[in-house]
């Protein structure tokens, strides 16, 4: 029954040849430097994918309008080629290869989320293409020995583990032994949250604190009442939740509903999930780690200080009422690239890479200086506690913290 089908195949092959023709562009075309990025513009990460994209675009516009990038006495404009990785890692790695091989991109900006970065980094490393990423925080990204990847943000162990430091100080101040503290934790089952968890586990071991609940939340779980019921029965001193905005929103809703009265609660992604606006009752006293503050007293020549960047960005994108830190760090990543091009004074990939490695600069986003592994060691993470009047109060020592939290259920 199978013979003679070459007409159909001839057609298919003709289409395939037509489909793949069209050559690679150069990395620098005329007076434009082309950066590439595979971002999540559809699928489960798309909200933050767009936040990232706008951060990149805003920085590119600003740099171009202020004279561009000066290399070898000539001024170049920046442009970014985007692809949509559909929030799937295998697609992200394929598109990165496509950006590098077919579109000739030689400098990459990172994707959104640890998971995507884990898929993209092996490819950029393989082609020796420098990448500055702003959205992949996992510690495990920086233990792989990647030489061409640089991250402007603080890594995952700074998200929730330092909350335990603050809490241990508090316990000491109250005349209690930190080793008596008991922790309940729920982390989404993905690369980012599990790395945050690893940091917490390490820190808890250091203090001898006991982890009484250690649940992993499946990606499509809309209900964490089982974990919270256990929390209620065991009455721990600390409740930690990490699961992007989705995890924070689900947790906040059910914590309110079940009147969880743990004295200290901390989530990642509080601001992105609008925990305070949507769940004001349970949000009171919640600790939130954040990469960046919009009143940070740091500045650079392009954006001014953090407050000015914040105001300018809102003017350029009026749909934002509160600008998430994901956008700020994306802008900072572009700034790092610009700085490295100028210091390298060349478009040679390895020279740019070495210039990136030697980065030591102040930006509106904070200081940026890379460790040999590629993570930014100059910038601290910030912790804030949601107050009764809905404001966020920066917590530096345990004395700033309201403990136990007063929830008004």
């Amino acid at each position, binding site marked *: *029954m*199978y*013979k*003679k*089908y*070459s*007409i*159909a*195949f*001839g057609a*298919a*092959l003709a*289409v*395939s040849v037509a*489909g*793949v023709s069209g050559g*690679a562009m150069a990395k620098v075309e005329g007076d434009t430097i082309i950066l590439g990025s595979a971002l999540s*513009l*559809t*699928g489960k990460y*798309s909200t933050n994918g767009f936040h990232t994209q706008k951060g990149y675009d805003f920085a590119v516009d600003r740099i171009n309008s202020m004279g561009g990038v000066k290399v070898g006495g000539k001024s170049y404009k920046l442009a970014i080629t985007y*692809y*949509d990785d*559909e*929030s*799937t*890692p*295998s697609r992200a*790695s*394929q598109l990165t*290869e*496509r950006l590098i*091989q*077919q579109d000739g991109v030689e400098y990459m900006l990172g994707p959104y989320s640890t*998971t995507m970065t*884990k*898929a993209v980094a*092996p*490819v950029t490393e*393989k*082609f*020796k293409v420098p990448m500055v990423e702003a959205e992949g925080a*996992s*510690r*495990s990204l920086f*233990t*792989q*020995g990647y030489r061409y990847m640089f991250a402007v943000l603080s890594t995952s162990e700074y998200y929730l583990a330092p909350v335990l430091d603050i809490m241990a100080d508090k316990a000491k101040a109250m005349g209690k032994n930190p080793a008596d503290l008991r922790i309940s934790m729920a982390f*989404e*089952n*993905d*690369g980012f*949250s*599990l*790395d945050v*968890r*690893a940091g917490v586990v390490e820190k808890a071991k250091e203090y001898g604190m006991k982890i009484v609940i250690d649940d*992993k939340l*499946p*990606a499509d779980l809309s209900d964490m009442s089982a974990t919270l019921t256990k929390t209620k029965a065991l009455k721990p001193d600390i409740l930690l939740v990490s699961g992007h905005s989705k995890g924070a929103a689900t947790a906040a809703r059910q914590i309110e509903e079940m009147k969880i009265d743990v004295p200290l609660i901390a989530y990642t992604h509080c601001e992105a999930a609008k925990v305070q606006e949507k769940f004001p009752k349970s949000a009171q006293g919640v600790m939130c780690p954040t990469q960046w503050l919009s009143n940070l007293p740091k500045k650079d020549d392009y954006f001014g200080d953090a407050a000015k960047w914040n105001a300018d960005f809102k003017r350029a994108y009026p749909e934002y009422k509160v600008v998430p830190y994901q956008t700020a760090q994306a802008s900072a990543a572009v700034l790092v690239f610009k700085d490295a091009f100028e210091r390298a004074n060349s478009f040679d990939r390895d020279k740019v890479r070495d210039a990136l490695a030697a980065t030591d600069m102040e930006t509106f986003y904070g200081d940026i200086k890379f460790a040999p592994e590629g993570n930014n060691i100059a910038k601290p993470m910030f912790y804030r506690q949601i107050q009764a009047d809905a404001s966020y109060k920066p917590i530096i020592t345990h004395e700033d913290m309201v403990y136990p939290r007063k929830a008004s259920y």
Partner: protein
Amino acid sequence: MINEKLVYLALAILGLAGPFIFPDYTMQIAVLWVMVLMASTWDIMGGQMGYNSLGNITFFGVGMYISAAIQVSMFYDLGLYTASYGAIKPVFTETQYYTGFIMGVIAAGLGCVVLAVLLGLTMFGLRGPYFAIGTLGVAVAAREIAGTIEVIGAGAGIAMPFLPLPIEYRSLFYCMIFFALAALAHFVIRWMFAQQFGLAANAIRDDEDKAEAMGIPTLKYKLVGWSVAAFFMGCTGAVFGNMVGYIEPLEVAFPVATFGIFMVAMSLLGGKGTLWGPVLGAILFHIVKETTWTYLLGLQWVVLGLILIVNIVYFQQGIMGWLQTKYPEKFGISVDPSLTNQKEEA
């Protein structure tokens, strides 16, 4: 008269010379062969035997994990390798990598055969939509369970060892392996369906009860068919995991709603139950996807859902099926003259 040899020649040129003529597109050609593998192996059960599985992606993911586990644990402690901070960061020597890779792919194939037999024994009492839902359930369960196993990295996944080849050869390496696998799968399927197996499979599709009444050992045929599909899916998954370089359960290993459905859609598009239909469907699907996808600006998934609906509702017979009815003299089912004589006697 259309010559099948020409088709093979054209495909061989695309497979062997394609990556050299279009070196920048090696990755896409490699994924093309993955798509061809998925569609043609799905068709063994789905098209030819009437067992429409929505869960063949299980073998893809299980193969990927088996291979990853073996590649690492042959030389290092897997638990330490996948620990959250990467407690150890070993460098695989060339010998280690290739031995691990070969062993991993073979073990993935064989492991998936064992899994297929076990699953087959529990699932083959289901018919029609129950089989489809049951296998979909298996795929989702596999995904969830893989996410609970700490030693393979749980939800955080595994970063695969690097292929120790210069960069310009890496994509080529995977592309050639996938081409070889796809060709092997094609000829195995072709050979199988030229045997009694093909007749038995179609008999099972048309009426399993009658087939059984005729004395055809249906369970045996179903197990063999599913095992072959599982073997190739397992090997494909193993190599794919290495190519992507990073494995995690939700989207890379068990992409139930993407590749899991693509393979069915491609077979239907090309025409299920034919040797060439799934191949044609896969090639067309991949080309259309790669050329138009990035220009649909976020609407691509909506369009995909629509294509699937339109394909199933309005164009069920697929391209090959349409050609067979439209041009029966060229594409219709031809019968070997020697068989015809027997038929007339009967």
